[in-house]
């Protein structure tokens, strides 16, 4: 069975190929069957293979499969090979299952779109590349997946290409991530020069022997890899593309810009954790970036009008949490939160998509309201997702994953109070903007009438995700209440268990209490501001207009980059448009023509003139001869 591993990414590609070549000729009903079907199949494959992998060979750390030898050039050798271990298994699981649900959703959601087949082709392509990314056994192949998903993200953001600004959003997303990727590629160069291989396992073995902890080279490489991660996962300072990426259809936002692709950064850091552990500075940087990002994005999310933009900023901030977890060495918690986040954020985006479709593509929350009657199912599932995002205590999965991060950011050896504080504040803000969103959208008086009620496919996927994002949390329960550690144990073969500062386990419940109180408090605040005294938040807004617009614009990062990079580049490009290097050559030509004119003036056609010429020549020659 497990020698069919290659089928897991293979099937979506097959689907994509069929859809591309079938194109418009394919009967419309067949399109979702192929699209969703292929992904569903690979989800099943994942189940079987995962089961076999876990049961049949309990001792085995990992399973490799070389499909073919990709590049083999005088010492540089890279295979097109897959690597299966528990870490990749988690990601594969999430990608295929959430991916399948979202395909299912799209089957209905996009049904009326002219680019139906194209959409599913892109989506399958994406799933395929994403699977390659997480299954690659060497960094080059991972980079292939890495760029592949970037490409698909570009295509899907700009899916509605008729509107130019979608195109620009797509382009922005792509180029910004490319900046990160370039850093990562340079990292690969150094890795190859150091280890003579790009094979992840190989690097993980050699690194500890080669480097002592804190060696400069390890730090450099780690930082470069971090650059790539930051770009893909929309972390500081490359986070600006994600909010604009909402130009894509909602399923795309759900799949790519919430559940899977944006967490690739988390994956690569977890994957190369050996290097990061050898580079404490880099690891600390990860944590700091996470902390800063989750705050910045949180504040921006507070001020957004656009439903999807709120979710986008919240995604940024949640990934910030994951980075924070990685930064404090809480590897498994990061992965855990990734999984839970995949569930509830996908759910939220799908819900938002349904809402927006229902109110004929109105994005502004302030123009919505009172939808809880009209769209009950969407409302309830959305509420569950929101609760999970806000980490309401005990019942939601989000609580357990985020709580673990909070706890470890304080308790872990690598953690410290500041990071913890940031996480805490972040948690509070999260709750506030989450329920701001909920209240504005579903409560209050009705502002728009509903035109389209979601059908079966959408409902199924919403419900399933809702369930997942509730029970998903119970696989990992902290010491203080019953101590389940499925995820940690599960991942322990790959990811080291976080080492806690000695003698503080007892105080864990305090943290949990704080977290719980904060989230409840946030909920109450949101209720107070947006339900009880709706006028109040306008007052607040008007009292701090500058700060508000500053947050609304995502801390003005866009205009900053515009001034720093874009304008100079475009300016230089345009002044050089006509290729200054032509100048010298034209100069030569002009000189030649000039001399031509001078000389042809001497050809006056007058006989005596010519005679004088001869005489002058004679004099010159004689003088030359005598002088030499």
């Amino acid at each position, binding site marked *: 069975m497990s020698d069919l591993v290659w089928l897991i990414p293979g099937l979506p590609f097959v689907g994509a190929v069929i859809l591309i070549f079938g194109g418009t000729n394919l009967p419309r009903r067949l399109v979702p069957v192929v699209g969703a079907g292929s992904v569903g199949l690979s989800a099943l494959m994942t189940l079987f293979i995962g089961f076999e992998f876990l049961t049949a060979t309990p001792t085995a750390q990992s399973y490799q499969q070389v499909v073919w030898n990709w590049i083999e050039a005088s010492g540089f050798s890279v295979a097109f090979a897959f690597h299966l271990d528990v870490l990749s298994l988690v990601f594969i699981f999430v990608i295929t299952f959430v991916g399948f649900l979202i395909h299912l959703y799209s089957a209905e959601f996009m049904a009326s779109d002219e680019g139906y087949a194209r959409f599913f082709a892109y989506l399958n392509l994406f799933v395929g590349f994403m699977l390659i990314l997480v299954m690659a056994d060497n960094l080059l192949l991972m980079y292939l997946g890495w760029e592949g998903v970037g490409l698909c993200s570009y295509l899907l953001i700009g899916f509605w290409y008729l509107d130019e600004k979608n195109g620009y959003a797509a382009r922005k997303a792509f180029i910004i991530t490319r900046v990160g990727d370039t850093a990562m590629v340079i990292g690969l160069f150094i890795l190859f020069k150091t280890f003579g291989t790009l094979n992840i396992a190989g690097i993980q073995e050699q690194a500890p022997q080669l480097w002592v902890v804190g060696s400069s080279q390890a730090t450099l490489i780690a930082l470069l890899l971090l650059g790539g991660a930051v770009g893909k996962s929309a972390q500081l300072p490359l986070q600006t593309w994600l909010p604009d990426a909402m130009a894509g259809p909602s399923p795309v936002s759900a799949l790519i810009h919430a559940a899977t692709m944006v967490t690739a950064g988390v994956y690569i850091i977890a994957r190369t954790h050996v290097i990061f552990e050898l580079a404490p500075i880099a690891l600390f940087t990860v944590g700091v970036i996470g902390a800063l990002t989750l705050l910045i994005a949180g504040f921006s999310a507070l001020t957004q009008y656009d439903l999807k933009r709120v979710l986008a900023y919240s995604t940024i901030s949640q990934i910030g949490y994951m980075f924070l977890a990685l930064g404090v060495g809480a590897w498994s918690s990061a992965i855990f939160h990734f999984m839970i986040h995949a569930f509830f954020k996908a759910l939220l985006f799908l819900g938002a998509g349904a809402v927006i479709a229902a109110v004929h593509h109105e994005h502004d929350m302030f123009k919505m309201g009172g939808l809880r009657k009209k769209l009950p199912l969407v409302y309830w599932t959305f509420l569950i997702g929101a609760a999970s995002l806000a980490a309401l205590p005990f019942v939601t999965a989000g609580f357990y994953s985020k709580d673990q991060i909070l706890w470890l950011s304080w308790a872990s050896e690598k953690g410290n109070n500041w990071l913890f504080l940031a996480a805490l504040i972040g948690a509070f803000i999260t709750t506030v903007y989450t329920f701001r969103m909920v209240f504005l959208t579903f409560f209050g008086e009705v502002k728009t009438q509903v035109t389209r009620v979601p059908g079966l496919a959408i409902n199924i996927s919403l419900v399933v995700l809702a369930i997942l994002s509730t029970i998903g949390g119970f696989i990992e329960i902290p010491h203080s209440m019953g101590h389940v550690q499925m995820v940690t144990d599960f991942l322990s073969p790959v990811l080291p268990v976080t080492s806690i500062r000695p003698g503080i386990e007892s105080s864990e419940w305090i943290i949990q209490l704080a977290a719980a109180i904060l989230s409840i408090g946030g909920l109450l605040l949101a209720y107070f501001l947006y339900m009880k005294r709706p006028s109040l938040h306008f007052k607040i807004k008007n009292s701090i207009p500058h700060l508000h617009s500053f947050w609304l614009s995502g801390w003005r990062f866009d205009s900053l980059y515009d001034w720093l990079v874009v304008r100079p580049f475009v300016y230089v490009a345009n002044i050089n448009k006509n290729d200054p290097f032509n100048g010298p050559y034209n100069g030569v030509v002009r000189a030649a023509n000039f001399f*031509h004119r001078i000389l042809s003036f*001497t050809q006056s056609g007058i*006989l005596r003139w010519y*005679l004088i010429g*001869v005489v002058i020549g*004679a004099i010159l*020659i004689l003088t030359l*001869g005598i002088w*030499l």
Partner: protein
Amino acid sequence: MLFLSERKEVVMSREDLLNIVPLFILTSAAILILFSIAIKRNHKVIYVITALSLLADFIFLVTVDTPAKGIIEPLFIFDGFGKFNFGLILITALALTMLSYAYFEQREERKEEYYILLILATLGACTLVISKHFVSLFLGLEILSVSLYSMIAYLRKRKRSDEAGIKYLIMAAFSSAFMLFGMALIYYTTGSMEFGAIASYLAPFSKLPLLMIAGLGFLLIGIGFKLGVVPFHMWIADVYEGAPLPVTSFIATVSKGGIVILLVRFFLQINGHQYTSLVVIFSVVAIASMFIGNLLALQQQNIKRILAYSSISHMGYILVAFLAGGSLGIEAVAFYLVAYFITTVGAFGILTTLSDSQRDAELFDDVRGLFWRRPWTAAIFSAMLLSLAGVPLTAGFVGEFYIVAAGVQGNMWLLVIILVINSAIGLFYYIRIISIMSEKQEAIDRPEVTLKPSVYFISGITIAALVIALFWVGIFPDRLMTLIRFLIFS
């Protein structure tokens, strides 16, 4: 040196006689034509006589095996080098006769005397290439020039023809005066007019005596004028433009070629390479010729003039090889002359076929869109132009390669690099003509030149032969190279 002779007896042996027969054939041909005109004016007959006599002369030259190096004291030397160029000139003259027939057949003037002049001019050039004495040099040169005067002005009805004639006459006489005075000075210092004797007089000197410099300088003026190198180049364009096309090509090839050979012979004999002053003078002249020639042609609108100016720079190229000296240099000169003759005659031949009875085809408008009116003519003309530009597959390329090789072997990097630069400049105006020809000109419907079929036929085969020669020499030059080398070193 090569051509230095030890024999001193003055009696004329049988092989000497054999050697000199080619000159006799030419003279007698001239006389024969004179008589036949007296009997009856018939263009065709005269033309046939001319062609046959030139052919016969050539055949005699190559078949009858004369001693390797015959010398007729004190005037002539018949070595391989001389013979080779003798033959070359004869062949060129033959080709020109063909074209002249095609050209004059459609002219109203009396055509017949032209052929006398043609043959006499050829005779003069031939005399030049075998002369080793000022007297024979002088005679050859003057026979050549005097017949050229009238050839240039042959079409009396044309203003330009006449103007060109007068210009050429005054200038030529002027330059011969210089040359004679130079000779006199040399004679005065050395006491001999024979190259060998002059050389042996000069041998001890490491630096030239003053009078000698003056003499050589004046001599150089005369030669430079005939070659049309800077600064004696000014007449060229006007004469080329004014003269009838066949005459133009005669000036471009035969007369210049003769002088070049003479120059090489004289210079090698007196071993000029050892005198810095001479080398410097020639280098300056060469460089100036290359640059000024090309620059003058750059934006020129008249094809005849373009070819005139380009000939200036080509003479400059030849001077490079000539300066490089060494056996490779001489070979290069000889080879380049062949290539240059083929190309130039071909180019002018094409223009001949394009000309009508009123005027010569010399303006861009005459060739505009030629590719679509007369593709073959256009293709051949472009081939000729590309050969002048030294582009592969053509004789011109191998010639240029030969010259550059000689230059590199002689370590004359400055000259060679300037040559390269100039052939880049030159390329511009050659391909300019080509692009004019390839212009899409459905609009132009100028009265097509209509020639008699016989004329078409004759000029046709001539040009065909030239084209074949062009590509043959361009692609399989080895035969020619070995021949030249054999003749030079035998």
